[in-house]
């Protein structure tokens, strides 16, 4: 095809999409001259180019449309009839363009019908506005008006160039391979301690990361591109269905990867159609229900962490739960009794089942029985999730969460049954260590494994069992995974590290295995399978009938509880009454072999970490076991440790610590209700001097003993969610803030912060600036600040030192972070 012609077709189709969107806005805001100007210019440009390329039929048509629009520009009232006419003109233009594209020449035929109508309307409108003579001069004036705009267009053009999508895709593939090679080199250097390579490799690593980011950026497009056709669709639907529907769009400028954008276009269109067709009522019904006659479909998009959230909400009638339930029974998806026990959320989810449609009659708009299941499949295919909330009479909201880019993802490399697997970080919420004796123990309800996590039962799957690699052990790690609103734990034997992986498609011979979403090559050159959390969640759905509670409620309750909750270690010692101690004070839980316990001068001692550690009993009733393993709580203060002998460790609970009855007994702070039973809260400070005579002198004033508060600042919700439980588990209170400004506001409003942990890379005010601001204010100058960064360069560390960061930790180095927090808070102790 002629290059000029191809260019023209590409540009024109882009322009037409924009005209579509503009026209509908124009109809809603007929007085907005700005919009009118835009449409006019677009049509004008098409007309001009047609003349140049010798496409007379198109030229005549656009000319007629332009004339009419010129009238509107002069202040003619815009009628619905006129908008419809212009829309059909544009449809005609499109069909001619399609023909041109297919045959490379303009098709024969005439557009007399439309041109006549356009002309008639222009004539009809004329007398109302201005005398004829003036009108005729208009087009010529327009042409001169265009010049400044053209000049501006040229200026913009010189700053950007057109690059074909293939070139960008190829660039992305190449960069992906580069990332892999970089990972391989890093792996090699990790094995050989040759320092010669380290520095240049670090540099290479940084450059690769930058390159990856830039290339990813070139592929980013505003989501508005996928929305362009929607206003027109909604307008046509309103006419077809006889409803008044308004489409609101927010966040159209939110960018995401072009590839992802292409894949969400159709699901979005389908959802919007669905809202308009099923959701919004007719004007009469709406008025009767006390709502405005005009219904609204609201589309919004925003970034959050590595995700883009897209919300499609309508203010219509909401989902008809009764009908969905009935239909589910009809389809044999559930029994009637079962439906009765299901939550509204679960019933709503039936609509995503293949072949499920409740539309009583099949309309051309929706209700063809294919749809919502395809929408969900498409979204899940790109690693996204879709969620549905519906309130009867008030409307339904679909929330789609999709990763910004597909090609390279960060993954957690885990081990199960002697094999390694990658779990995409995007679906990982947190990691919990599971051990029989530890804080989190895997329990079983009948045969279903569960984990008690912050007062909630988390259903578990053993990766090893699902993959038939043998029976899974209850020791290891639980990867808390989220798919949509479904949270579950994946039990693995070990967590090795995180790595940026390039997803390679699954072999066609393996694609039927739903537990995997792809393969990847690790830094050490080996191939591993990428776990598909969606697939696991399906397996879980079949295997473990653990009642799912309404997630949103649980989360809210959990958040509220976690705000003020103190993790308490509950144990028994001596008496059957439970005892508890704030977990933050316990350094470690240990079981020691009784044979190692020595007695000297009436005191019990044990060799612990190459030192002698005194063992103390809570009271005279507690006895030290003579054989087997003796559980102890280890308390440490700097270089000294003390073991407190207990009978058994019962649980770790996180709750508000309200000491209700204060007692005058040494070693006892008082009683509190912990998980429904009266529990003795042990005063650790009583025991420490018993072990070391000089401990009391170094003892902290009682006020300092309460859990310290860490203010966690990170713009990514993902990191906040990942790090907060980690810090909490280390025995601190956590207050999270999504930005530096929010953090400063929290401090100003009286939130206590003993320590600030802040992300360095944040929009608006970054971590360095936050530290500077804190330092500048006398009341906050003493708060230690720990910086978190995905990339730590020498410059960053230097800058951190200058602005007074106490420490700098890599974002994925969880152990490092906890160590840094502990160290800083220990310094505070000494200072206090």
């Amino acid at each position: 095809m002629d290059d000029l012609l191809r260019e023209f077709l590409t540009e024109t189709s882009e322009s037409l999409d924009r005209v579509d969107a503009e026209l509908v806005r124009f109809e809603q805001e007929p007085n907005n001259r700005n919009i009118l100007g835009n449409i006019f210019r677009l049509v004008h440009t098409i007309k001009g180019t047609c003349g140049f390329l010798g496409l007379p039929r198109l030229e005549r048509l656009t000319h007629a449309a332009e004339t009419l629009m010129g009238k509107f520009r002069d202040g003619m009232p815009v009628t619905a009839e006129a908008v419809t006419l212009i829309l059909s003109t544009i449809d005609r233009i499109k069909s001619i363009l399609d023909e041109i594209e297919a045959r490379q020449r303009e098709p024969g035929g005439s557009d007399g019908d439309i041109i006549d109508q356009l002309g008639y309307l222009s004539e009809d409108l004329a007398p109302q506005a201005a005398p004829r003579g003036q009108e005729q001069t208009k087009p010529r004036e327009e042409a001169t008006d265009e010049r400044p705009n053209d000049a501006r267009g040229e200026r913009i053009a010189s700053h950007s160039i057109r690059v074909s999508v293939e070139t960008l895709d190829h660039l992305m593939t190449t960069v992906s391979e580069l990332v892999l090679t970089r990972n391989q080199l890093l792996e090699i250097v990790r094995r050989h301690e040759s320092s010669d390579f380290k520095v240049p490799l670090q540099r290479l690593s940084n450059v690769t990361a930058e390159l990856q980011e830039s290339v990813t950026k070139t592929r980013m497009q505003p989501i508005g591109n996928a929305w362009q056709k929607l206003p027109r669709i909604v307008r046509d639907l309103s006419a077809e269905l006889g409803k008044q529907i308004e489409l609101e769009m927010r966040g159209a400028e939110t960018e995401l990867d072009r590839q992802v954008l292409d894949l969400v276009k159709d699901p979005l269109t389908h959802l919007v159609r669905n809202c308009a067709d099923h959701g919004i009522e007719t004007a009469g019904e709406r008025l009767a229900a006390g709502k405005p006659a005009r219904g609204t479909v609201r589309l919004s998009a925003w970034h959050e962490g590595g995700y883009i959230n897209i919300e499609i909400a309508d203010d219509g009638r909401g989902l008809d739960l009764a009908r969905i339930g009935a239909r589910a029974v009809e389809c044999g998806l559930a029994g009637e009794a079962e439906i009765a026990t299901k939550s509204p959320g679960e019933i709503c989810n039936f609509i995503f089942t293949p072949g499920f449609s409740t539309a009583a009659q099949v309309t051309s708009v929706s209700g063809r029985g294919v749809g919502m299941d395809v929408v969900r499949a498409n979204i899940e295919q790109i690693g996204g999730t879709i969620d549905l909330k519906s309130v009867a009479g008030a409307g339904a909201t679909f929330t789609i969460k999709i990763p910004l880019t597909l090609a390279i993802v960060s993954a957690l490399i885990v081990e199960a049954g002697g094999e390694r697997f990658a779990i995409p970080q995007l679906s990982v919420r947190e990691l919990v260590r599971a051990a029989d004796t530890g804080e989190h123990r895997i329990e079983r309800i009948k045969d279903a494994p569960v984990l008690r996590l912050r007062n909630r039962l988390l259903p578990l799957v053993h990766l090893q069992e699902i993959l038939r690699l043998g029976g899974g052990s209850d020791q290891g790690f639980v990867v808390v995974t989220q798919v949509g609103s479904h949270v579950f734990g994946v039990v693995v034997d070990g967590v090795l590290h995180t790595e940026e992986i390039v997803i390679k498609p699954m072999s066609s011979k393996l694609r039927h295995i739903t537990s995997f979403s792809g393969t990847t090559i690790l830094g050490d050159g080996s191939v591993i399978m990428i776990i598909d959390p969606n697939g696991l969640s399906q397996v879980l759905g079949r295997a473990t009938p653990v009642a799912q509670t309404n997630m949103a409620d649980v989360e809210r309750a959990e958040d509220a509880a976690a705000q003020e909750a103190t993790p308490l270690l509950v144990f028994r010692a001596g008496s059957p009454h439970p005892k508890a101690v704030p977990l933050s004070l316990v350094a470690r839980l240990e079981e020691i072999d009784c044979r190692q316990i020595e007695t000297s001068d009436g005191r019990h001692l044990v060799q612990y970490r190459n030192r002698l550690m005194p063992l103390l009993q809570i009271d005279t009733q507690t006895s030290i076991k003579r054989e087997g393993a003796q559980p102890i709580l280890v308390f440490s203060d700097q270089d000294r440790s003390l073991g407190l002998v207990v009978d058994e460790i019962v649980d770790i609970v996180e709750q508000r610590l309200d000491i209700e009855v204060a007692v005058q007994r040494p070693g006892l702070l008082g009683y509190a209700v912990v998980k429904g039973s009266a529990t003795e809260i042990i005063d650790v400070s009583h025991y420490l001097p018993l072990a070391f005579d000089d401990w009391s002198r170094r003892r902290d004033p009682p006020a300092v003993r309460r859990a310290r508060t860490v203010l966690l600042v990170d713009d990514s919700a993902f990191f906040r969610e990942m790090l907060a439980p980690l810090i909490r588990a280390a025995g601190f209170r956590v207050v999270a803030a999504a930005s530096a400004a929010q953090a400063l506001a929290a401090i100003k409003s009286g939130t206590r912060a003993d320590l600030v942990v802040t992300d360095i890379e944040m929009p608006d005010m970054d971590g360095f600036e936050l530290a500077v601001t804190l330092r500048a204010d006398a009341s906050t100058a003493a708060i230690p600040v720990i910086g978190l960064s995905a990339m730590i360069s020498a410059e960053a560390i230097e800058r951190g030192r200058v602005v007074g960061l106490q420490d700098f930790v890599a974002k994925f180095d969880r152990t490092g972070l906890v160590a840094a927090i502990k160290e800083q808070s220990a310094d505070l102790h000494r200072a206090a």
Partner: protein
Amino acid sequence: MSDRQELEAKMRQTVDFTEFVTLTAAGQMFGLPIARVQDVFKPTRITRVPLAGAEIAGVLNLRGRIVTAIDLRRRLGLQSRAEDRPPMAIGIETKGESFGLLADTVGEVLRLADADLEPIPINLDSGLAAVSAGVHRLDGQLMVVLDVERVLDLHAAAA
């Protein structure tokens, strides 16, 4: 050039030949048309794939490409290979995907006349018969010609 020589030369030209890469699995010799063979390599670090069919030995990294390794013995229903003898792999590409057929040994390339290809004996094991295109009689042994597409059609094997 005599008439007879001319005739022979003509005959050689008209007779079609196919080149085969020979391999053995469980003592049986097989042949794969060389046109379908990408390369021959010693597979290292095969990652087994849980939940995959028995004939899938796993996946491996061959110069940055992910290759699905198919155990020929299992695929053809032959006796399983002893663990101590490392297999050889024959790389095959089809529909943009890479596969590796694991055989016990890979031998020389033979150029054989198509006319000599004999149909599969009717009493041949049905599993073997389903993936073979015929048999070549060589000195002292038979070479079963494998049809690559049918060998890779695991779905048919399962059915």
